[in-house]
Each structure stands twice: as C-alpha cells, then as structure tokens.
C-alpha cells in the first residue's frame, strides 16, 4: 500500500482516459469521425504510457471513488499489477485499431461512434474495483461490441451472428452477477461490494464451487472457452476487421482477466487442488477443437477466430495449472504456469490483432476474405504479407517469435505439472500436454495454409490479381504490431517483468531469479530458453550459409515457366495459369480433415463431378459441424422454441378456459392456506 492516501497519479490518469473514451463516442456521433479516431489513437497511446509508468514506478494505491453507479454508492476504480498488465495490451491494440480505422476501409467510418466506447468499457472493467463496476464494464463492453458486430447489418449472416453473440453476453451477465453476489459475504446490514471487502471473506464449500461454475460459464463464454466458443467465429467474421482485432486480441483477454480476478484474487488461495482441473480440461479440449477448425474454415477471418479459440484454450490450461499448483502449495510452479499464461496473453493479443488487421487489409486490397478467391498477394501487397508472415510465425510458434516463447513456458509448466501429485491428475496432465502439442502442431499447419493459400501462389481471381496495398496508417499500424510481436518474442523476460506484480498478487511469487531480459528458466539455475541467443545462432547460421553460397556457388538466376512436372506454360488467355490447378484451402486441409475432422468435427466432403459432356467445373463441397453447437447450442434453441410454444397455449385460451385457470389458481391458493393453517 502507498503511504499517501490519495489514489495514484497513474490510476487517476487512466480513469480520465476511460472517461474521455466514452465522451469520444459522442464526438463521433456528432459527425467528427476522423477527429474521433485521431483522438482515440492519442488517448490509447497516452493510456499505454500511463500504464507503463505504473508498471515501472507505480504502486497499488487506494481505490478511486467515482460518483457514478449504484444509487448513492458510486463505483470504485483501482489499478494493480494484474489489471495493469491486461490494460497495457488493451491500450496497444486499441491504438492500432484506431490507427487502422483512420483510412476508411469501406465501412470503418460507421464504427466511429462505438469503437471508443468499446475500448472505454473494456478499460472500465479492467479498472473496476467493485462488483458493480466490473459487471457494468463487462456488459457495456458486450453491448458496444454487439453494436460493432452489427456494423454492416444488412446481410442476414451478420444479424444472426450478432444475435447469438448477444445471447451469450446476456448469459455472461446472468452468471457473473450471482457469482459476485455469492462472493459478497453474508452479513445483515449494508452490503459492501468493493473487492477489498470481498477479499476478507473468501468463499468456501458449495459457494466456492458455485462461483467456479458461474465464472467459468459467465466469463468463459465471453473468452471463447470451449464448449461456449460457438459464437466466436461467426461474430469475428461478421465484424469489421479492426473490431475483430479488438474483440479477439483484447476482449477475450478482458474475459480471461475476469476469470483471473475472481478465481485467483477474490476467491483466495485456500481452494481445493481440483479447482484447476476444469480449466485444464476445457482448455485442452478447446485448443485442439479450435486449431483443427482453423485448418478447415474457408474464411481467413474465421480461421483466425478459430485459432483464437485454440490460444484461449492454451492460456486456460496455464491458468488451471497455476490454480492447482497454488492450491498444492507449489508457488514456483504456479508462478511458472501463470507466467506462461500471461506471456501467451500478451503474445496472442499482439499477433492475433496483427493478423486481423492483415485480414482487413486483404479484404480491402483484394476485395475478399475467402481463401478460395485470394492468392498471390505477396506480389501486390508486400508490406501486408510481410506483417502477416510475422504474425503467422507467431501463430505457428516458431522460434524465436513470441508465440514460441510463451508456449515454451507453458510446456515447461505442464511438464513440471506432475509434481502436484496424484496419479489421476498426473495422467490428466500427460493427456493435456499431448493435446497442447497437437494443438500447436495443428496451429502451425493452419498458419502455413493461411499464408500459403491466401498470400502466396497465384491469384485466383482477377480482382485478387489487381489487389493493391492499403493506406499508410493501416500499414504503419501493422508494422508497429509486427515490431511489438518480434520484441515480445526476443525479450520474453521483459514481458514477465511487466507481469511480475500481477504474478506476485495472484500466485504470491514472481519469476524473479528465473527470468532475466535474456533468459527464461523453469527452475532457478537450470538451463532455459534464451531467445536472443537462439536468434543469434540462427542469424550466424544464415550468415554462414549465405557466405558459403556466395563464395562457392554461381550467383544470379534465370526466370522461366514453372516446371510443375512438365505441365506446359500457361496460355495467353490465362496469364497466371488456370487458378484451379493450384492447391486451395479445402485441398490443403484434406489430409487433416480425413485424419481428425471426420472424428472430431463430423466433417464430410462431397465431390460434385459433372457428367461427361457437361461444361461446368467439378466442385468439392466440404461440410463440418462444431460438436459444441451440435450437442449444446442447437438443442438449447430447440428447447427454447418448444417451451415458448407451450407458453403460447396459455395466451390463446378461450375466455372460459382462462377463467378456469383463474378458478384453479384461487382454489390452489385456498388449499394452500388451509394446509398451512392445519400445520
């Protein structure tokens, strides 16, 4: 605690940032779109600076009371390590999104009113220091993103996606409020909703279990934790890309933050070991499911959305392990797992928003997001493709990128997991490790498919052949994100240092002594992962190779038609050759679809082969359905309709029957009274 009783300078500044963001929405609504975007960019940058300042020099001061909220009570804002960490990510992505929106890619202008509000709402839920403001921010966030998803509301799929999304948002609130209420300890008299008061009475017994379930449903659904991830791909595909970047990069992280805040911070450390199990199991499940779907989806935005599901799963595994280890009183392991999770939060937030911005660029430059229509963008959109390569490298977890650093740490934690003990848990951890590795490999395949089909090869449509690079603001935003990705990859230790306060707060131990700027190690003193060294090794090897080749080989090269096992050069009327003859998304995914998709996603493919003599082209139709939607969402919708059908009967009774209902109710109540009085 700080000696001075005044809320810190950083906190006040960030609170102002949130307020300004809300006001900016009005500014944009008043028609000053570009001004609003510039201001958003500036404010987010300022927020990032303030947040860094806090991480560097600040200490968690007393909360800041704002006279808005529950009647008379107002809300409290506070800033501590864990929220500051997530806030940093949010501010960075927010700035990038605003910058991208600066050069209007078609309909970006119509998002001007809600984008700042969206960021502001997320800021609010990160700064929240009492139950009400957390739920308020969370719901405002959901509402704003709901509006943003509806940006081009005239086509039906967008509307249905937004509707599903809203349903999940409502579910979130309906679970989080009771969870909060269970956390607030029972004492007659005034209810104190502030986190400080909640921490003093950690829940026990069935309350704790209920809270765990409610939080997993309420926040997990928002984070895209399996099996409640079904809303995520359609929503991300429906939203404008810079919004998807925010949703996937920041919003899912805010949901994770809520999980961390409630399960780690507010519930206290005195919880059973098995608390981590559901997070681990669901996480591993979702990781594989998402990564596999990423190899099957045909829309590059949907591909990224599915890989978001995968990465959220990995983070969830880390969180679950940290919970279990903390309960088993293994703080070192807990810190390792939590550190890995936070590292992946940062890494995924950065590279996923980068990828989404790239998707937006592709949509703008090439006019489509369908893999089957893209191709060859590397020639027309070099900058975008370069940034996408960086993002894809992180997605595929290739050393020495940030994705690899975080997944390495997570794997180290999982491999050390068996120390928690109990053969059942150990076996579970073994299976989880297996699934994580599977997911990572699948993600690599998805990354290759994404880049190889979408950005390399030959253009598949004239529109793609005529693609053009996006505006400078968008390019700069992407380049900046790419740079951040590389830095985070080269210096994971720095990210862990930024997370130190959060680690201390959640698991009681930092990675101090185990992570320096250059090196991250599982245990103090043991060898670990030194990203800069690996990078240097690679660089040296590359330099050596180039040197050898330069000295020994004949330089230069000739151009000619592709050999392609003797296929002739393309005819004049098809300058790029027949686009059909190259591998598409569906064909690239085929082996995986056959090997895993049939079992896990009920995938099936159907070759539509024209009769001899017909001139139409043969087509390959691929269908797959997500088990979660088949087993969970569709039945729920069915029940809802059936029940509403029953409820409707009551409405259309004749007056006489309605009177009989009244009569019945009266008799029922009278009987009840009689019985109660006889007792």
């Amino acid at each position, binding site marked *: 605690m700080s000696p001075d009783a005044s809320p810190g300078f950083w906190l006040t500044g960030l609170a102002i940032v949130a307020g300004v963001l809300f006001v900016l929405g009005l500014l944009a609504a008043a028609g000053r779109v570009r001004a609003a975007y510039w201001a958003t960019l500036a404010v987010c940058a300022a927020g990032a600076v303030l947040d860094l300042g806090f991480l560097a020099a600040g200490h968690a001061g007393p909360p800041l009371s704002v006279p808005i909220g529950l009647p008379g009570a107002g809300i409290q804002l506070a800033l501590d390590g864990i929220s500051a960490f997530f806030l940093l990510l949010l501010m960075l992505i927010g700035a990038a999104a605003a910058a991208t929106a600066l050069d209007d890619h078609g309909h970006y202008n119509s998002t001007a009113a809600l984008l700042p509000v969206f960021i502001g709402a997320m800021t609010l839920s990160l700064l929240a220091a009492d139950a009400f403001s957390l739920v308020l921010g969370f719901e405002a966030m959901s509402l704003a993103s709901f509006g943003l998803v509806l940006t081009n509301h005239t086509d039906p799929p967008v509307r249905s996606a937004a509707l599903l999304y809203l349903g999940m948002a409502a579910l979130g609130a309906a679970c989080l409020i009771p969870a909060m209420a269970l956390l607030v300890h029972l004492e007659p008299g005034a209810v104190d909703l502030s986190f400080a008061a909640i921490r003093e009475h950690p829940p026990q017994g069935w309350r704790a279990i209920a809270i765990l379930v409610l939080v997993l449903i309420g926040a997990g659904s928002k984070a895209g934790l399996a099996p409640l991830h079904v809303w995520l791909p359609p929503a991300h595909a429906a939203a404008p890309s810079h919004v998807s970047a925010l949703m996937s990069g920041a919003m899912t992280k805010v949901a994770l933050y809520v999980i961390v805040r409630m399960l780690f911070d507010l519930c206290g450390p005195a919880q059973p070991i098995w608390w981590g199990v559901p997070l681990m199991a669901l996480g591993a499940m979702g990781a594989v499911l998402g990564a596999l779907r990423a190899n099957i989806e045909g829309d590059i935005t949907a591909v990224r959305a599915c890989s978001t599901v995968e990465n959220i799963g990995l983070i969830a595994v880390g969180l679950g392990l940290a919970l279990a280890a903390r309960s088993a009183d293994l703080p070192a392991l807990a810190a390792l797992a939590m550190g890995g999770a936070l590292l992946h939060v940062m890494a995924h937030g950065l590279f996923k928003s980068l990828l989404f911005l790239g998707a937006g660029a592709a949509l703008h430059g090439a006019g489509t997001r369908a893999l089957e229509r893209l191709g060859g963008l590397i*020639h027309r959109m070099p900058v975008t493709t370069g940034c996408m390569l960086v993002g894809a490298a992180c997605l595929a977890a290739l050393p020495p990128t940030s994705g*690899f650093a975080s997944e390495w740490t997570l794997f180290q934690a999982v491999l050390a997991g068996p120390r928690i003990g109990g*053969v059942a848990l150990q076996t579970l951890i073994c299976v989880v490790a297996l699934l994580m*590795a599977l997911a990572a490999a699948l993600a690599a395949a998805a990354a290759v498919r994404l880049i190889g089909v979408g950005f390399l*090869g030959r253009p598949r449509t004239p529109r793609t052949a005529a693609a053009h690079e996006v505006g400078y603001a968008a390019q700069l935003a992407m380049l900046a994100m790419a740079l951040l990705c590389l830095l985070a990859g080269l210096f994971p230790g720095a990210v862990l240092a930024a997370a130190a306060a959060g680690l201390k707060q959640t698991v009681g131990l930092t990675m101090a002594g185990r992570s320096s700027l250059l090196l991250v190690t599982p245990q103090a003193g043991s060898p670990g992962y030194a990203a800069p060294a690996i990078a240097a*090794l690679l660089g040296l090897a590359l330099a050596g190779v180039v040197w050898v080749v330069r000295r020994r080989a004949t330089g230069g090269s000739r151009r000619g038609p592709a050999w392609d*096992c003797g296929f002739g050069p393309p005819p004049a009327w098809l300058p790029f050759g027949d686009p059909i003859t190259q591998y598409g998304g569906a064909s690239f995914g085929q082996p995986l679809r056959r*090997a895993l998709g049939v079992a896990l996603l009920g995938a099936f493919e159907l070759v539509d082969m024209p009769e001899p003599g017909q001139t139409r082209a043969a087509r390959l139709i691929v269908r797959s359905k997500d088990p979660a939607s088949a087993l969970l969402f569709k039945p729920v919708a069915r029940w809802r309709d059936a029940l509403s059908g029953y409820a409707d009967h009551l409405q259309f009774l004749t007056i006489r029957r309605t009177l009989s209902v009244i009569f019945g109710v009266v008799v029922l109540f009278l009987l009840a009274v009689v019985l109660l009085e006889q007792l």
Partner: protein
Amino acid sequence: MSTIIALIAQLLHIALMLAAAPLLIGLIRRIKARLLGRAGPSLIQPFRDLQRLLRKQPVLADNASWLFAAAPAVSFAATLAAAALIPSFALGMTTAPLADMIVIAGLLTLSRVVLALAGMDIGTAFGGIGASREMTFAVFAEPALLLVIFTLALLAGSTNLDVIATVLREGTLGLRVSLGLSMVAVITIAIVENGRIPVDNPATHLELTMVHEAMVLEYSGRHLALIEWGVALRLLLWLTLICTIFVPFGSGQASGFPPYWITGALAWAAKLGVLAIALAVFESSIAKMRVFRVPEFLGIALLLGVLAVIFLFVSQGFT
C-alpha cells in the same frame, strides 16, 4: 580457458556435422545398393552432387517471390542451428545451455514451415500436395515427440538435451520400460521427419507418391543443393539425437581433455554406422505405405509415448 575449449569443440562439432551429413547419405545408399545386389555409388558421391548443383545457375518460376528464393537458406540455417545444439562427440559444448529439446523441435518446425511455404509459393499442385502432407505428418509427429520429451524431462528433471544426456550417461537410472518405449517412438518419429521409407521415398520419381520431393519440386541449382544438404543434415541430426539420448555412452566432455574427444568421435561414428546399416536394412525390406496410413503409423508412436509417461507415474509414484 575451458570456455575456449568448449567453443573449439562446438565449432569442430558443427564442421563434423556438415561434413558427415552427405557421407551418411552416401553410406546408406551404398549399403542399400549392396543389399539389392548392385555395386552402388561411391561414398562421396553426394559431395559431387552438391558441387555440381552449386555450380548450376538456378531457374526460378515466373511468379516465384522473394520467399521462394530465400527459403532454402533459411531452412538450412534452421536445421544447422538445431544440429549445432545436439552434442555429437562431447557434452557440455558452448551451446549446451541452449540445447533445449523443445527449442530443437521448434527449429526443425521452422525449417519445415519455411520449405512448405516455399512449396506453395509457385502455386503448382505438387507444391501444394507436398506442403499439405508434410504439415499433416508433423501434426502427428510433434505430439509424439513432446511425449518423449515429457518422459525424459520427468527422468532428468529438465528438457535440456545436455542435462538429459549427462544424467542418462551416468546410467544411474538403469534400464527402464519407459525409455524403451520412448526409443521406439523416437525412431518412428525420425523415420517420418526424414521422409524415409515406409513414409516417403527420397529416391522416388513418381510424383504422386512424393511428399518432401514434391514440395521442393521447383528447386534447382544452389537452392536445391542447400535443400539436399539440409535433408542429409537432418537425417544425421536425428540419428545423433537417438545416439545421444539412448546410447550416450562413450561421448566425451567438451571441457575435458581434448584427446577424449577422439574416443567420443569414434564412438559416435560407430553408433551412426550401426544405425545407418539398420536403417538401410529396414528400408530395403519393407514397402512404402499409403499416405493416409501414415497418421495411424504415427498414432502408434503417440500411444507408445503416452504409455511411457504413464509407466513412469506408476513405476516410481512420481511426485
């Protein structure tokens, strides 16, 4: 002082790897030829091939991008970096602290991904086939590998290859079921990763059965040279890995007295020879399997890996 020696050992190791890779290929080809009753090429034939390829000027397809031209070098560099981390004749080289098995796996993935991207860059069907199948195999190989790493990490308490090798070399752990299972798994993975029979046939000329070859079909000249060399290096790397982990005996200590390196090198050569013969015999005795049976093939490795880990838990009540 010792650091200097360690550095020397390191450079020596890299040089040895680079030199031994083509030699190994030559050896295997020769043995196979003998088994098939042919005379076979000389051992240094691969060197001659590399020379020739380096001298030829490459032909790039019309729509090849910079990525296509850069890929072989990057891929080779990644493999080389991985190879530099795997101790051959002596432990405790300069890069020993970096020699994390997950990092090694990552580097190999890097080289594979780069080549796969290059394969798709021209936009031919064969490049696509190759890339798709290569990535698919990896999807099943990597989890199996991770399980092996899991077993070793549980035994040695670290994922650092040098530490593991040291622990295993002491032989204090004795013979373990888990190690046996993991070895089978690793061999299976190695076969897949190097595209050897029965998974892929490096010597095939029937495009539809190609995997790796299809992926690099468009390459020529120095690019192809780098790729061929890289393939050879990767095979050597895997065999060395198997030696280092499962038969770590005889390897010297980098910081130790240099003459011991000789014995280590000899031991290493002997192990490699044995493995080469085994591989040749194995390859010439069975037929290539259909592509879609490879996942099942790898599935076995995967299950063995799981079994190895579980055995550990049960056997020593690991806590």
